[in-house]
């Protein structure tokens, strides 16, 4: 009795093929070392962006809850943010040009576009500081009312993310200057580009949430 019971069937779970979990994750074992590293970096970035998305989702839900409050006074968007929006959109274009230049291995153009993007990013942050000043000079401060609080906090958190992007661009430039980047192998230009577009997307999203919701 006990004898038969100590040897249960082991079929279940032996990981035989056809399981949808394995199909969706794929098996492992192919690809060269550097290919693996590039994939790893890309995957890492995508997952990190999931976290950033949750951060802004949490802020959004707080915003929605709070905007139901009786003391909610709608804020007029400071005009400068439209200038900044254009700068940021433009920087996504230059970022893409840089990435493509890298992929088709035109190193001079690549470095040029990356540098231009970094400058545009820095310009955007400066523009945001100016936009905050513009609001403050109208007497609308962080603590004036909930909408202004959210405006300052959300655009501030966004600016921090963009700053990270600018630093990453400088890092890519540094690698490029040291000739450490090879198309098809190095992942950093592609990864930084994805991040950059994502942070640009977050900006559009914030504008919609803050002023059109």
């Amino acid at each position, binding site marked *: 009795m*006990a004898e038969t019971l100590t040897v249960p069937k082991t079929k279940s779970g032996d*990981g035989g093929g056809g399981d949808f979990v394995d199909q969706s994750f794929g098996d492992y074992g192919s690809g060269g070392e550097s290919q693996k590293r590039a994939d790893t970096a890309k995957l*890492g970035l995508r*997952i990190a962006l*999931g976290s950033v998305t*949750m951060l802004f989702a949490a802020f959004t839900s707080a915003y929605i809850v709070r905007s139901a*409050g009786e003391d909610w006074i709608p804020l007029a968007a400071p005009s400068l943010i439209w200038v900044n929006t254009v700068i940021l959109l433009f920087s996504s274009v230059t970022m893409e040009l840089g990435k493509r230049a890298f992929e088709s291995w035109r190193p001079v153009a690549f470095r040029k576009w990356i540098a231009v993007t970094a400058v545009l990013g820095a310009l955007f942050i400066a523009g945001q500081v100016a936009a905050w000043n513009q609001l403050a000079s109208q007497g609308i401060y962080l603590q004036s009312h909930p909408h202004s609080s959210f405006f300052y906090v959300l655009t501030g*958190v966004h600016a921090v993310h963009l700053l990270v992007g600018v630093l990453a661009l400088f890092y890519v430039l540094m690698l490029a200057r040291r000739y450490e980047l090879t198309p098809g192998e190095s992942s950093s230009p592609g990864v930084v580009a994805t991040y950059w577009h994502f942070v640009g997307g977050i900006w559009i999203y914030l504008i919609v949430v803050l002023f059109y919701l």
Partner: protein
Amino acid sequence: MSEGHDDHGHGKQSFISKYIFSYDHKMIAKQYLTLVMFMAVVGGSLAMLVRLQLGWPGQHAQFWETLFPAGMAQGVMTPEFYVMLFTMHGTIMVFFVLSLGPVSGFGNFLIPLQVGARDMAFPFLNMMSFWTALPGAIIILISFFVEGGAAASGWTAYPPLSAIRSAIPGSAMGQTLWIVGMIFFIASFTMGGLNFVVTILNLRTKGLKMMRLPLTTWAQFLVGILGLLAFPALAAGSILLLFDRGLGTSFYLPAGIFIGDTLFPHSGGSPLLWQHLFWFLGHPEVYIIMLPALGFTSDIISTFTRRPIFGYRSMVYAIVAIAMLSFVVWGHHMFVSGMSPFLGTAFTMTTLCIAVPSAVKVFNWLATLWMAKIQFTTPMLFALGIVSFFVTGGLTGIFLGTNVVDIQLHDTYFVVAHFHFIMAGAGLFGLLAAVYYWFPKMFGRHMNERAGKVHFWFTFIAYYGVFFPMHYLGISGMMRRIYDPNTYDYLKPFQNVNTFISISAFILGLAQVIFLANYFWSMFKGKKVESENPWHANTLEWSTPIHPGHGNWPGDIPEVYRWPYDYQHPDEEGDHAPQWQPPAKVKAAK
């Protein structure tokens, strides 16, 4: 046998790069575990002080004044000090012991070894993760020594107490440091989670499909995802809290708050907003603590019954279901916050759904254990302890998850009993089971078995002695976070129960001295392990040399041919076939 030689070309490492700013996941894991052990001693001592007060409320013992001149002036504990004690106890235990231990500690140690990788996907990030957690821990600890003392708004930090700096002494500098420390913790934990998920997805060795992963690694995978998706909510909440505290915003603060004679200028904020953001993290956090313990339990039970874990697939699907459900149940912490009864009922339904996959796990463990020839080693005893706690705490969870019942039980000692079984007990025993089980892999020596068993029995019995009677106190109406229950006449008859609980708690605390002594003694003097695979287990970490170097395997990474639970496989000789052993037919053909 052999010393694993270094495969990564860091032949000669300086002390600093080997022990301090190490990139090696195994060393980082040991750094985490050392930190955790220290934090556990602090967090445990705080619990002892809480029990000192509740066992003998307002007792005068001059001696304490020398230790805590402010908190225990004239040898009597002040209410302000009491509040700080349980706040910091909860915070330290939840985040800095049971998250950093089983997850950051053992996750780091085991994931690359169990998936067959040379290291984590991002070793630099991994190092940074530890060096962010450490400052976080230090900030939390120094908050005891600032003016006003440590934070005192509970581990949940509800505003307004946490948002107005002059509310109570602990709301001042202490609360600020609490938030800053938590932000460090969140940063560290997110970096760790990123590494976990990417490593498990991308760096598995040849043949290691997802459905061949040990359940421990499955648990760590889900924990990584939970952390990445849930902690940002607390990060956002904490940022808003900092603004309310320091910069005059009103995210959480409503109008009309008076402290003393001062009216605060805030208006319109919603304290409930914090509760939502906090518990959106808070509930998944409970599973961040528990899932690794459940994974260890499955693997340890399988090893020491010499049987495949029963229902591997259903185990995987169960933890996936638990992880997903954990995002839609947070409202069960807020049944008495005035939420709509319809919403409350919805949260009740989702909460009760979790009972299903949880029961699946328990039945699978019982089926694995059923009539098995169990080897009662110390790690096995602790794993069985987890099963016991999981059942005890799970049953009370059904009561608390039902909104109509929770209205009565909310914020009583019933809740304290519940979460100390399901979360604290399971988590703590998981950590201890893991230490006993993987100690040979970490240090090449065994821990002393006899001391381990003595430690287990004292801990297990005392644990029930502490927390089981709390159910009765709670049903009788003793509220949690109360400084002196005897201020209420109807609670006076329960003083002897409280004294009993406190004596059990001190026994529980003292029993941990046996563990600490055993740990450090065994590190240097324990019995040396004789082969790479002392427990005759199947998972990949046991295929590394006794002392694996950086890079883990001296030669090629082994290929995986099977799932990790081939014990007593009818086609294989011997009682177990490790994952790296080719199937009998292939071997015969060669």
